[in-house]
């Protein structure tokens, strides 16, 4: 197979590659081999992987090919090479959590999502770069090197699932697990030009997943397309007895919902909060996305989201206090082992009163009900830009380097995503343009709790009429 043919295999979407594996036109060993070769060729520039286990991956791929030849397909991801944010535990395997503190950490048990992905037939290549302990929205990492945007390596990837966004954008893997506590799936998805979904809070098990915030952590995929995300999410979603907080709500067939028909669907565009101070280029790309949805028959309605001051205020402290709590021992004993921006962020949580924290949690249900009544009374879903700003450079957001204004820019990156975590709503980010620097722009689609099928349906409908999700970074051949 020549180089062009190999590259074209990795340009397939996850679902197309799965179909090719199923009909025998390609093997798991071939896909795993080209993925590993692509990491060798490309990853020096973007630094999306922390570790890879090529030999083990090829061995697994070979076993999967034998199974397929004998007619024993494991599941909907049979033979697909994936790699995941390096915080999903697998017994005996490295899980650095992007940190120096856990640089040698090998857990004794396996995350439920990893079990489900491998039970569905996927091949795990290794652990992907991430923000240290999943705690920044830009993808900076002082310990393993910053992950760099495949569209332009001076720019950030978004975080905290930086390697997941970069590896999917650079077509090194067909999909990757990320995690999202304040935007950490949707931000790298938007910034790297891929699709990423954070499901409803409680939709996906967190057993065996590095914690950041008990109340706001979510597990989800980054992929090329909404259809890919639907298949991936369908594998990992659903109740897990090992995670008592996971929902028993039945998991529908997400792919079956992707009919492309959004005629008559009412899609809200907020009149408040989400557009304050927005960059004109982001606004223009968002407006164009709205026009695409309208042309497909959606009814666009203005909608005011109530309680946004409360959502922003409360949402801003829950994960900080929970993160500050679980990091307290290391902050006492080895604060120097954290990057400056992370110890700087963890430290002030010690000054937030417990009464504030509990107020934020106690009001969450009442606020969700009020928002749902006001918003979903007039629309079926609402959309906003994923970021209000154009993609910033790594330097502009480098707190450790002492860049003036970095703290403020850093915090503004996630201003549109954090509120969705507090509300617990499902949200998918979809690429919708390129800015004047050649960096991607994305918008996010939110629905009612457990409306993953609906938000994916809208995303898929949009992608049927656009090609932003198919475009390749300049140096990806």
């Amino acid at each position: 197979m020549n180089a062009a043919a190999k590259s074209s295999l990795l340009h397939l979407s996850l679902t197309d590659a799965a179909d090719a594996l199923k009909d025998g036109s390609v093997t798991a060993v071939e896909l795993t081999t080209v993925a590993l070769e692509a990491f060798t060729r490309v990853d020096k520039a973007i630094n999306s992987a922390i570790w890879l286990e090529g030999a083990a991956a090829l061995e697994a791929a070979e076993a999967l090919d034998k199974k397929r030849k004998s007619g024993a397909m494991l599941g909907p991801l049979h033979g697909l090479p994936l790699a995941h944010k390096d915080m999903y535990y697998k017994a005996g395997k490295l899980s650095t959590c992007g940190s120096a503190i856990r640089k040698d950490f090998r857990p004794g048990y396996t995350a439920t999502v990893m079990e489900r992905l491998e039970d569905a037939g996927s091949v795990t290549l290794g652990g992907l770069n991430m923000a240290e302990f999943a705690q920044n929205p830009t993808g900076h990492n002082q310990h393993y090197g910053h992950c760099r945007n495949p569209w332009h390596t001076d720019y950030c990837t978004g975080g905290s699932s930086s390697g997941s966004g970069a590896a999917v954008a650079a077509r090194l893997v067909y999909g990757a697990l990320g995690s999202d506590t304040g935007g950490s799936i949707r931000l790298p998805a938007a910034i790297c030009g891929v699709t990423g979904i954070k499901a409803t809070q409680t939709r996906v098990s967190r057993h065996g997943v590095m914690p950041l915030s008990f109340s706001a952590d979510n597990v989800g995929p980054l992929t090329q397309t909404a259809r890919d995300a639907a298949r991936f999410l369908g594998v990992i979603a659903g109740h897990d007895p090992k995670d008592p907080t996971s929902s028993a709500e039945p998991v529908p067939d997400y792919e079956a919902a992707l009919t492309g028909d959004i005629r008559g669907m009412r899609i809200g565009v907020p009149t408040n909060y989400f557009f304050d101070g927005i960059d004109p280029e982001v606004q223009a790309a968002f407006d164009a996305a709205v026009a695409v949805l309208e042309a497909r028959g959606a009814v666009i309605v203005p909608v005011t989201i109530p309680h946004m001051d409360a959502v922003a205020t409360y949402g801003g402290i829950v994960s900080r206090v929970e993160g500050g709590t679980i990091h307290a021992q290391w902050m006492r004993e080895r604060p120097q082992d954290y990057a400056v921006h992370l110890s700087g962020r963890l430290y002030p949580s010690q000054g937030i009163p417990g009464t504030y924290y509990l107020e934020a949690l106690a009001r969450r249900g009442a606020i969700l009900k009020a928002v749902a009544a006001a918003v979903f009374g007039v629309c079926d879903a609402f959309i906003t830009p994923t970021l209000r700003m154009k993609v910033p450079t790594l330097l502009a957001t480098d707190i450790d380097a002492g860049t003036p204004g970095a703290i403020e820019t850093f915090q503004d990156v996630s201003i549109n995503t954090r509120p969705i975590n507090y509300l617990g709503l499902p949200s998918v980010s979809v690429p919708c343009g390129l800015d004047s620097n050649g960096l991607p722009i994305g918008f996010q689609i939110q629905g009612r709790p457990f409306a993953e099928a609906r938000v994916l349906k809208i995303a898929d409908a949009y992608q049927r009429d656009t090609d932003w999700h198919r475009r390749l970074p300049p140096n990806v051949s």
Partner: protein
Amino acid sequence: MQTPLREIVAVQARTWSGIEQPNEAAGIMADALAATIAGFEALRGQLAFEDEPSSFEAALQETKEPQP
């Protein structure tokens, strides 16, 4: 003169948790809690006596997408 927030946080972090301010960025971010405090001040009186954290899981169910 009001005590700077970073000094208040320093006393709290040391007294309650045995944690010291690790760097200047931490001090800047402690000072930035002023915006959080202002946010909470603006929300005073809105917490109902009966509100509790478990209401969130109930609200997810109550507001969920109806099944087709």
